[in-house]
């Protein structure tokens, strides 16, 4: 820390990345951003960090965001359907639509 070509650059960076990590976590996108200090001489470390992070992201599964990109009901409900707990005070579920078409 403080060992930066841009003087205080890494101080700023760490704050900003921490900020972004917290914000993404708040929205439900945890663990998809990572910061590491690697000098241009540390090729081994660079490879290690990238490899580890790639594995970590792979373990998180596919990016959930594209599911929201289509103007189709399915896009919304598929994600809302999963892991959607009941909230206190919410209305009881509507009875399923009866088949009016025999």
């Amino acid at each position, binding site marked *: 820390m403080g060992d930066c070509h841009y003087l205080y650059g890494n101080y700023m960076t760490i704050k900003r990345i921490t900020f972004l990590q917290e914000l993404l976590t708040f929205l439900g996108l945890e663990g998809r951003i990572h910061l590491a200090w690697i000098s241009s001489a540390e090729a081994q470390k660079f490879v290690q960090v990238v490899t580890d992070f790639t594995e970590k992201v792979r373990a998180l599964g596919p990016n959930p965001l594209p599911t929201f990109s289509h103007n*189709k*009901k399915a896009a919304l409900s598929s994600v809302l359907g999963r892991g959607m707990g009941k909230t206190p005070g919410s209305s009881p579920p509507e009875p399923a639509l009866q088949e*009016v*078409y025999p």
Partner: protein
Amino acid sequence: MAGLAAAFGSGAMTNSIAEIEDAGCILIIGSNTTSCHPLIARRVLRAKEKGAKLIVADPRNIQLSRFADVSVNHRLGSDVALLNGMMHLILQNDWHAKQYIAERTEGFEALEETLKAYTPEKVQAITGVDVHDLGKITQLYATHPPASLLYAMGITQHTTGVDNVKSCCNLAMLCGNVGVYGGGVNPLRGQNNVQGACDMGGLPNVLTGYQPVTDAGVREKFAQAWGRDIPEKPGLTITDMVPAMLEGKLKGLYVIGENPKLSDPDWNHLNHALKQLDFLVVQDLFLSETAQVADVVFSAASVAEKEGTVTNTERRCMRLHKAVDPIHNTLPDWEIISRLSTAMAYDMSYENPEAIFNEIASLTPNSYAGMTYERMGLDGLQWPCPDPHHPGTPYLHKDKFARGKGRFHALEYQDPAEMPDEEYPYFLTTGRMFAHFHTGTMTRVSPHLDVEQKTGYAEINPTDAGKLTVNEGDILVLSSRRGRMEAPAHVTESVEPGTIFLPIHFGENPTNVLTDAEAFDPLAKIPEFKVSAVKIEKLTIE
């Protein structure tokens, strides 16, 4: 307009915008509400979040489809069949409002007879809507009163436009949804003052407040006020004007605030007609495509530069307040018209727009009679407002329809004028996108809106794009029986396979090269912008 007037006796949105929030169910058909009427979409979502049911019926997948309880993609132009199918199921399930039908409507028996044939299987065959989805939307609409029906140009811009509107009215009356708070049949007008323009008699067959020119009493009243005889024959609609120009019967055209070169169907045909004119005058804010070929151009002042009123989609007449003086020697429209008229030997002199408004109120008994600038304040008044103490009317037809009894129309489904065939295998539909307005005369000159969408494009489903090996941004050549145009492909699931969507705003990709001027509703004369058949090829550079 014509359809609503035939069914209810009044051609306007029956209910108010704010009431949409309190609907039990909202059926949106032929309206891309978030793009074209975003502040009405706000009410729709608020209603949804408060517990209302939302049904979206649209050939395209629109933003609101995401939030719908059920959304269906019925085939372009199959609205009458879909609505008849819903009504068939309503009768079958005994969900119709029997007492309301008996007391307040007429023509039910004929409708009932017609509906018998519209079984879910038949409707599925015509519309492509699954029988189970049809059942679901019918149940939602019929069992969550009050149900509000919203429609826009997706219903009206068809050869069967009037039938489509009448079918919407049929459905709403069948469930007793007209004349009740939060319900109704609600056409969403595309501009802040379309309703106002109609109210002012900006139609060929009526004077203010839809008073027919064919009525001798009405003509007499206006003749007294204006000191001139009023012609008893209705004028021409724009759809009739084009052939009249071609035949040389119409020699001069005065266009105010329109850009027919882009907005009218069959671009080549219309250009040919404009060339036959002896004299073309255009009055506009900007030098539109039409103004560029005019003999005389009057540059008009913008909304911020003048006083006056507008009447919006919910019949609310509101005042405009001048914010700045007109720039560059422009004049408000009313002053241009007054001066022109005076120069042509009919002395039209008004002190200000308020004097004109007071004349309107004095000649328009039911709708505007009770309005004054002072009463309107900032919030405006909703017509009918027949006397100075009337608070205005949030929703129409409360205890009685404007025409007495609501009229059911028994209607059979008819195919659009042009269906895809071997030569032209794709459906083409046209419409608006959110960042631009109509022919873009006002929006394309705004840098903020231009950055949003700079050129035309053609929406194509990924399946079709795959078949044609077309990628995002590749140039497509679209041709119909009328003409040919090019546009970059936008690959999206917003359109279903077999359908192409083109936005109408872009003069360099004029959509109306492809559409058909011969196909229009026989009564309302609205052209069928929403359905044409086209073929598409990928542009290859040799």
